[in-house]
């Protein structure tokens, strides 16, 4: 926009300029340094709070996450949940459409799944019920995601703010259904749905409760990777995200792409809601999404839309959460220490992005840092 400013006489102490690119190993290196710094900062904080050897605390975190077979599976369940949402967000973010509304899309998906369990639980065979739940959640999430896209495409309504508000409409909608389906009366929760029949619950596969969660999300992760990288749609998404001008030049219908992509994005978040209800909690509440819709935004952003990178980042975040909960209970802190540590680590990773995107040059020196 502005013309290039050059002031040669009084060169500032630090000058920065945009980089064109950076080798992959370097960008990973920069992020790892960020992560290491974050762990050091956290260690200092942990030490000042608990006066314990931070290394021991990290070891305890590890035990808390992977200590027992059951813990490992709960950890995996939570990782795939977060991953699923991030995978859903990937196409929207690649299109530079700020879908902050995953939280809401998960909830409406969850409502749809719970509704199927409650109303169809007795009339449909278990397998058919799960299939109906799957599609019901997908459609519900898809519609929830398409609404802001329509307003964006048609009237250019700010999608960040729109999707954000849609979350809270969905939360109230959930509260409405929670009150409606309340069981037992007066508890203000839905309770475990179909506790006796287990209709609509994911059946154990290979003797494990959460195998189906993993399978569904693994399929979605691979499919989304292929969709974004190899399909015609994925190509359109990339072009629209990069430049709408180029998209029009290439005869791409920008509005259609926006709506279609948000339908896909919302649908997958809806599926995440289905997994949360049918595959984990077997109930619905306003905390079914539990802020993971927001956390997943950070995962998707940091992974730069690569669904396989998302696996690693989801795992890191869930590990931190689990581990922090573990140290909290061991050292008499409360669970929220995990949110604080997650926050600090994300701050550092976000900050390290700068050194990947920008070159820094100090006054006097001709050398460019990090070049």
């Amino acid at each position: 926009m502005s013309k290039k400013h050059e002031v040669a006489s009084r060169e500032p102490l630090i000058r920065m300029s945009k980089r064109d690119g950076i080798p992959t190993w370097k960008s990973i290196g920069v992020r790892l340094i960020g992560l290491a710094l974050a762990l050091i900062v956290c260690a200092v904080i942990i030490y000042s709070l608990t006066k314990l050897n931070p290394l021991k605390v990290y070891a305890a975190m590890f035990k808390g996450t992977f200590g027992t077979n059951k813990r490992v599976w709960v950890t995996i369940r939570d990782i795939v949940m977060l991953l699923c949402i991030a995978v859903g967000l990937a196409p929207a973010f690649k299109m530079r459409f700020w879908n902050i509304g995953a939280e809401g899309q998960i909830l409406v998906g969850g409502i749809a799944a719970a509704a199927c369990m409650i109303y169809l639980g007795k009339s449909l065979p278990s397998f058919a019920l799960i299939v109906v739940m799957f599609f019901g959640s997908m459609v519900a999430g898809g519609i929830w995601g398409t609404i802001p896209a329509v307003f964006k495409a048609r009237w250019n309504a700010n999608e960040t703010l729109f999707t954000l508000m849609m979350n809270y409409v969905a939360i109230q909608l959930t509260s409405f259904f929670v009150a409606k389906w309340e069981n037992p009366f007066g508890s203000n929760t839905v309770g475990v749905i179909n506790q006796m029949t287990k209709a609509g619950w994911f059946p154990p596969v290979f003797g494990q409760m959460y195998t189906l969660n993993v399978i569904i999300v693994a399929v979605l992760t691979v499919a989304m990777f292929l969709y974004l990288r190899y399909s015609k749609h994925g190509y359109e998404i990339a072009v629209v995200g990069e430049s709408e001008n180029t998209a029009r030049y290439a005869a791409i219908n920008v509005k259609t792409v926006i709506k279609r992509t948000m339908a896909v994005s919302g649908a997958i978040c809806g599926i995440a809601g289905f997994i949360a209800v049918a595959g984990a909690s077997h109930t619905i509440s306003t905390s079914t999404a539990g802020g993971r819709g927001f956390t997943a935004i950070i995962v998707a952003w940091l992974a730069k839309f690569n669904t396989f990178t998302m696996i690693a980042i989801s795992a890191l975040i869930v590990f931190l959460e689990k581990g922090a909960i573990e140290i909290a209970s061991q050292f008499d802190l409360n669970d929220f220490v995990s949110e604080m540590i997650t926050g600090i680590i994300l701050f550092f990773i976000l900050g390290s992005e700068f050194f990947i995107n920008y070159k820094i040059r100090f006054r006097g020196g001709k050398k460019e840092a990090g070049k």
Partner: protein
Amino acid sequence: MESSIAIRMVNITKTFGEVVANNKVCLDINQSEILALLGENGSGKTTLMNMLAGIYFPDSGEIFINGKAVTIASPKIAFDLHIGMIHQHFKLVDVLTAAENIILGLNETTVVDVKHVREAVKEICNRYGFVVDPDKKVYDMSVSEKQTLEIVKVLYRGADILILDEPTAVLTPQETQKLFCVMRNMKEDGKSIIIITHKLHEVMEISDRVAVLRKGFHIGDVPTSETNAMKLTEMMVGRAVSLDIERSVPVNPKPKLVVKNLTVCDSDGINRLSNVDFTAYGGEILGVAGISGSGQKELLEAIAGLQYCQSCSSIEFLPEKGEKKQLSGMHPIDIKRLGVALAFVPEDRLGMGLVGSMDLTDNMMLRSYQDGPGPFADRKKPKQLAETVVKELEVVTPGLSTPVRRLSGGNVQKVLVGREIAMQPQLLMSAYAVRGLDINTSYNIYHLLNEQKKRGAAVIFVGEDLDVLLELCDRIMVLCSGRVNDIVDARTTTKDEVGYLMTYLKEGKTNHEQKA
């Protein structure tokens, strides 16, 4: 005439990478004088003035203001030295009022004293004959009002030396007259004014002295009273240089594209193109000349379906076989569906023609990604194409998977042209195809265009270098202020004639077609 010198620039040199924008330029500006700075596109006028305004800093050379050596390191220092520049792209905040824009960043008082500003603005307006409503929001203003506001803003900040960068490019003749009137008043008041322009009649009308730049060099200055439009054109464009570009005689030219009455409005409701009529023939290269912003971009984009044209417009495409097709009012999608092989090399290579972050293969498929059945895009053919383009056009790249943004300008252009030509176009449009390219690459591009011409495609070549236009094209259409000023035979016309047509709209001219 007063002889005291307000600004003296001595041996100013400024380079951008390899390009020398100003080469040892010396220029004096007197007090109470209107100096016209004349030159073709890319002759270094704006760069030179930006160094006075503190936007750029010269690589070498000295600047004296009222005899004192100064260092203009920032726009703020320029203000302090009473230099004010009105840029082509206005630096105004849309949602603020005129008065608010005027005092922006000055922090004269803690609480904005609107009354005081209003009075001061009124005083300036009365002195020089402006009309500015201090309470009007900028988004409600016409282009000419915005320009007036920019001038008032600069005067409010105490400027004695005003630089106007192509101020008349966006004005109607009436508005131009008003501006000139104001400029004369300011001159009377002792201010020095530099006006950057291409328009010769305006130079003759308003200036006291003319300084001419060509390709970064200062060619000379003359008092306006001692020169005329033809002499200035000669100074500006220089002698014709022989480039030895191959040019074959068109074989069996058939009309390919008939444009009638093409009119395009921009979002401000200003006509960027008015009643443009012309025919492009298969087997010939039609050059489009004009000073920048005369409607070249809009012309090509309208044909490509990227600009909304007024309903009176007609753009007929006549294919080899079959019926003629109306392209006016169509989107690129519709044009593609009609099966019109229309290749377009836009001016903004990385912002429209290519996707900077994508690699060569992915950029090759921008036009063809829909081909082939199934939901997945075929990358084999684009990859082959990328290989072919890299080999045949000698694109220098680390590999096919390098993002095109990382290639040099010339290589980016080769990738773009290579892709567009690969679609075997019936109509090929290119905008500033050789801008920023070295000589060899330029000749490569000319050669490619000539090949398309020989294939029988209609080629429209929008260019800025008159020497190239004269030697490459068969006919040259000259645009002036969004109108077709004339279409001339490139083999018989002269550089002076085209230069003149670019800057001087024929009075009462009719937009007739000249047969090739």
